[in-house]
């Protein structure tokens, strides 16, 4: 975990409100693992005050990539950064996905909803490097929510697409696509990141199918490194339900651990 105040933005790609940034930060790149995140300063003023937690999309050589969607004032300011600018980033933070040696030679489902694809590309690459066979499920409301699909395929991954409006890929929710695929083949593990209703439905499917799974949760964060207790979610550990920190105890939790209660977050 380091503070890099001079992470140079070396490349920006964008599709509507989705952005892919490549940052030069050798210290962070060499420590990073899939599922970890950065806390990024989006403003030099006190408006907005806090850093923004952004998932790592890739780490390679001296570079890290982030893929994010403009969802509010913080990400809007971040999206306006220009190539050559230096960003103030803190990371890598959190516990990433676990990549189990026993997955070697087995098929593994990586399910991303919208911007939730961000950590899964990184994960899928690491899984493949470890000898597992990742299959990427990539769902969105519409075709415009799936800007990375060609890139994922070009990188040699099997990518299954769904859109709520049926504009491309299989029509309907990505969870239905997962269910349909489960009738044809059984993965050894499932990883997911996306909107809570999507992950909650996947958790239900995993329990029914007796599949092991991990979920990456999103939360508003004050600090990102465990000091504020602001980002907690209810998590079941050692038979007890407790508020655990998404930043430090997560953001990745196992199927058995997550207590889905998004009604709290209305």
């Amino acid at each position, binding site marked *: *975990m380091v*503070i890099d105040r001079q992470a140079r933005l070396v490349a920006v790609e964008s599709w509507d409100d989705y952005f892919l940034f490549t940052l030069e930060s050798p210290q962070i790149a060499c420590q990073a693992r899939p599922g970890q995140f950065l806390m990024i*300063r989006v403003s030099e003023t*006190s*408006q*907005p*005050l*806090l*850093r923004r937690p952004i998932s790592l999309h890739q780490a390679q050589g001296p570079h890290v990539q982030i893929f994010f969607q403009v969802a509010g004032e913080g990400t809007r300011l971040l999206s306006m950064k220009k190539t050559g600018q230096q960003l103030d980033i*803190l990371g890598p933070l959190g516990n990433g996905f676990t990549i189990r040696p026993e997955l070697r030679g087995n098929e593994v489902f990586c399910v991303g909803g919208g911007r939730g694809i961000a950590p899964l590309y990184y994960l899928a690459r690491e899984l493949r490097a470890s000898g597992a066979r990742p299959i990427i499920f990539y769902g969105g409301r519409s075709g415009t929510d799936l800007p990375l699909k060609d890139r994922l395929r070009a990188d040699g991954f099997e990518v299954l697409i769904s859109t709520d409006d049926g504009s491309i890929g299989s029509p309907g929710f990505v969870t239905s696509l997962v269910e349909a695929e489960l009738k044809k083949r059984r993965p050894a593990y499932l990883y997911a990141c996306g909107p809570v209703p999507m992950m909650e439905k996947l958790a239900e499917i995993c329990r029914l199918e007796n599949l092991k799974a991990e979920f990456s949760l999103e*939360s*508003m*964060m*004050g*600090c990102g*490194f*465990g*000091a*504020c*207790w*602001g*980002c*907690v*979610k209810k998590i079941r550990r050692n038979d007890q339900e*407790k*508020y655990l920190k998404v930043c430090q105890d997560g953001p990745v939790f196992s199927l058995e651990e997550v207590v889905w209660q998004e009604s*709290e*977050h*209305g």
Partner: protein
Amino acid sequence: MVDLSVDLGFLKLKNPVLAASGTFGYGLEFKPFYDLELLGGFVVKGLYLKPREGNRPPRLVETPSGLINSIGLQGIGVEAFCREVLPQLAGLKTAVMVNVCGEEEDEYARVAEYLGRHQGIAALELNISCPNVREGGRCPAQSPESTYRTVKKVKQATSLPLITKLSPNVTDITAVARAAEEAGTEAVSLINTLLAMAIDLETRKPKLGNVMGGLSGPAIKPIALRMVFQVARAVKVPVIGMGGIFSAADALEFMMAGAAAVQVGTANFVDPDACLKIIRGLQDWAENHGIERISEVTGSLQL
């Protein structure tokens, strides 16, 4: 070379910058970022006798130049702290302070008594001002009488120096400060957060799970500064100022208004090394202004 040290009477600090309770975890969270011994000191997160679950999420909302939190003092409790955390802090050459909480007066005293039996604690900060743990944001620091009673009871329970942390959610903070002083507190620290809220227009629901929370950050600095100014003129015990301090300039304003030392809170979230930058900034400012001892700045406001 500027002398940054500050003498609070009951405690000598190597510099006037303390990390504020609730924003600094148990101290260990900041070890990856810098040597904690560079700090004047730090106040670890509030502790009750037992572990505490905290409030239901969401617990944070950003407002203009500010942050509202409703954490609700989630924590491991004083026993686990003394067993698992304190041994890791005890050898540090900096002032380790512990923020003391209680459901009622008796619990404050019992927590203080328990901590008083352990080595490595320089002082206790009495948290009678958290707006997140009682119905309607109420707290003992909202009345001089309950402040007096709680401070008195804790003083009887421990010989550790006591810093009483005051609430801004009052009509006259000087009356509460004087009550704490009369009850024997060695210092006062202020301000805790301002009771606040935010609403989601679409759902028409409060943005915080606990409905109300405490506002901190640059937004509250002018109010905090005014209260530090008022309290410093009303009591003889040292005043530790806090509320939106993000820079050495902010810290100096509080010192000029009468603070002997300052606490840095929300800034620790934004910049984990905020305290260090502020210490360096105080050093630079004093050098540039030909000031030999930073303590000269305290109360130097020209009216």
